[in-house]
């Protein structure tokens, strides 16, 4: 665009003021990016949850166990296509409780079949079937401890001590990736048969079941049928959709989102005032120059465009670098993997961010640009440059 040189020169006129305004905008957009990543981190578990899966747990409490024999019985219930059990193992690495991550014994084929969002290469899958002490870990977790395939990893468990009295020995045989960006890849899964023969007590008992239903629309009916199946047994169950499993949370997540939106609105309102004031000052102190531009034949539209372009360049320089910085930061992975395993800046948040940068530039420049446009040339020229 012709006149871009003039726009840039004008921005350089008050370097400190321009730099400070850009810095404000930069900080606002870094904040925007990080808060979006945070919001994603809170909601990922809920949005990723499969609509066709139920969680079946002990009716009384999640920490009470169910028999492993319930699995085949659940699969007999009409509408159920598969049932997979989980047990909270609470593995601790290097005797350091801070080294926390989800560890669970599972049945490999069932597990991989039922959770297609965990992607494991076929050859690694084969090895896992062969090695009883084999474990697979998510990409994030593998990177966190720099584990490679073939590494031997000893874990201890306060819940499930090994019969031998020593640590549980595992061999990393696979590293799985998430099929989607929001998939949690911070888990550690190992074989149930290895677990069951090694544990000192509780043989034949598992924590809870994940159940896949044929038709998500009938998930509620299937859940009721499962509970009916085990009613009046020593281990009564409570089945509910996986998404609702996080329901206690969902309410809070709603609050988190509302809070983030409130913070961001306040930040953007402030930034709009800062950028708008800068542009208004820039135009006011340049009245005579705008007069000169008009006198030599710059039309009102061009003058409007020059001021808007200046505002857009200023906000874009601050805002785009801010978004870039937020993106770079989140691309390093979660700063607190134990608390927020899923941490990234979603592409749609980035697009919204770019839209907001443009909207900010436009909004901040509009009034000053209109006043510059309306300024009568003869009046403007009566001021001195």
């Amino acid at each position, binding site marked *: 665009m*012709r*006149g871009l*040189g*003039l726009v840039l*020169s*004008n921005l*350089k*006129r008050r370097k400190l003021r321009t730099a400070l305004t850009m810095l404000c905008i930069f900080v606002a957009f870094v904040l925007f990016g990080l808060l979006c990543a945070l919001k994603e981190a809170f909601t990922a578990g809920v949005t990723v949850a499969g609509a066709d899966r139920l969680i079946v747990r002990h009716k009384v409490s999640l920490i009470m166990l169910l028999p492993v024999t319930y699995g085949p019985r659940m699969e007999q219930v009409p509408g159920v296509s598969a049932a997979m059990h989980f047990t909270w193992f609470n593995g601790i690495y290097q005797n350091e409780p801070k080294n926390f991550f989800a560890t669970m014994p599972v049945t490999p084929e069932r597990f991989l079949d039922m959770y297609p969002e965990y992607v494991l290469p076929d050859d690694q899958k084969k090895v896992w079937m062969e090695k009883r002490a084999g474990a697979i870990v998510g990409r994030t977790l593998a990177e966190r401890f720099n584990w490679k395939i073939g590494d031997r990893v000893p874990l201890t468990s306060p819940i499930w001590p090994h019969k031998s009295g020593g640590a549980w020995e595992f061999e990393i045989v696979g590293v799985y990736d998430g099929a989607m960006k929001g998939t949690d890849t911070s888990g550690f899964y190992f074989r149930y048969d290895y677990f069951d023969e090694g544990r000192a007590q509780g043989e034949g008992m598992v924590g809870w079941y994940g159940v896949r239903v044929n038709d998500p629309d009938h998930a509620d009916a299937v859940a009721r049928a499962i509970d009916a199946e085990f009613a009046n047994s020593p281990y009564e169950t409570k089945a509910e959709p996986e998404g609702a499993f996080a329901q206690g949370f969902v309410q809070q997540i709603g609050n988190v989102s509302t809070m983030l939106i409130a913070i961001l609105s306040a930040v953007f309102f402030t930034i709009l005032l800062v950028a708008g004031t800068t542009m208004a000052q820039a135009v006011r102190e340049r009245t*005579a*120059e705008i*007069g*000169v*531009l*008009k*006198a*030599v*034949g*710059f*039309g*009102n*539209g*061009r003058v409007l465009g020059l001021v808007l372009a200046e505002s857009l360049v200023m906000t874009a320089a601050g805002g785009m670098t801010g978004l870039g910085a937020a993106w770079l930061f989140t691309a390093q992975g979660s700063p607190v993997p134990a608390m927020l395993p899923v941490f990234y800046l979603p592409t749609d948040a980035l697009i919204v961010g770019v839209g907001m940068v443009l909207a900010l530039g436009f909004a901040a420049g509009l009034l000053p640009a209109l006043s510059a446009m309306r300024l*009568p*040339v*003869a009046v403007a*020229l009566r001021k*001195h*440059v």
Partner: protein
Amino acid sequence: MSERNGALVHIERVNKTFRRGAEEIHILSQLNLEVPQGEFLALMGPSGSGKTTLLNLIGGLDRPTSGSVRIGGDSIDQMSNRRLAAWRARHIGLVFQFYNLLPVLTAERNVELPLLLTGLSSAQRRRHVEAALSVVGLTHRAKHYPRTLSGGEQQRTGIARAIVTDPTLLLCDEPTGDLDRKSGDEILALLQALNREHGKTIIMVTHDPHASARATRTVYLDKGRLSSEKPE
């Protein structure tokens, strides 16, 4: 670009009134003026008599309250703002008392400014800028910013900007008003050369009899009217 009677500027029964609160101030009343092609006209008159106002009407920077302003056959008082801006870009070169250069641009960029509105390529624009700067004798200062130029050099940059589009009419509002005698004389000599050698029609407002002596004709504005005699 010439009228039947040969006049380039043709002003007829022009009135200009400003409003200051409830009060109406009549600055120009029933004013007539003809400026033939190729003239170097000096416009004199006491401060506040309306010289700048008249120049603004001729340059299409302002509109008369009534009456007609025709420049080279164009009735500019009838034009829309948009057409008027384009017309100014083609036909008018303006020189100001305080130069009115943009401080953020170098001399050559200031001179280039009016050319941004034309369809010229950047190479063509550079050639025009060089030509204009060499006419005013400022080629060696092309890359300087206004604040590093003397008053006379700034005014020569201003003149280069005014002539770079080869306008029909050059309007100068006290071009030597802020300069010392020597620099002022150089500017006047330059304007005179533009008039004589390049055939530019020039209207120059001045308070300085020394300056008006360079012109081919002098008119006096007083109490809203023009006369060729210096009023008492």
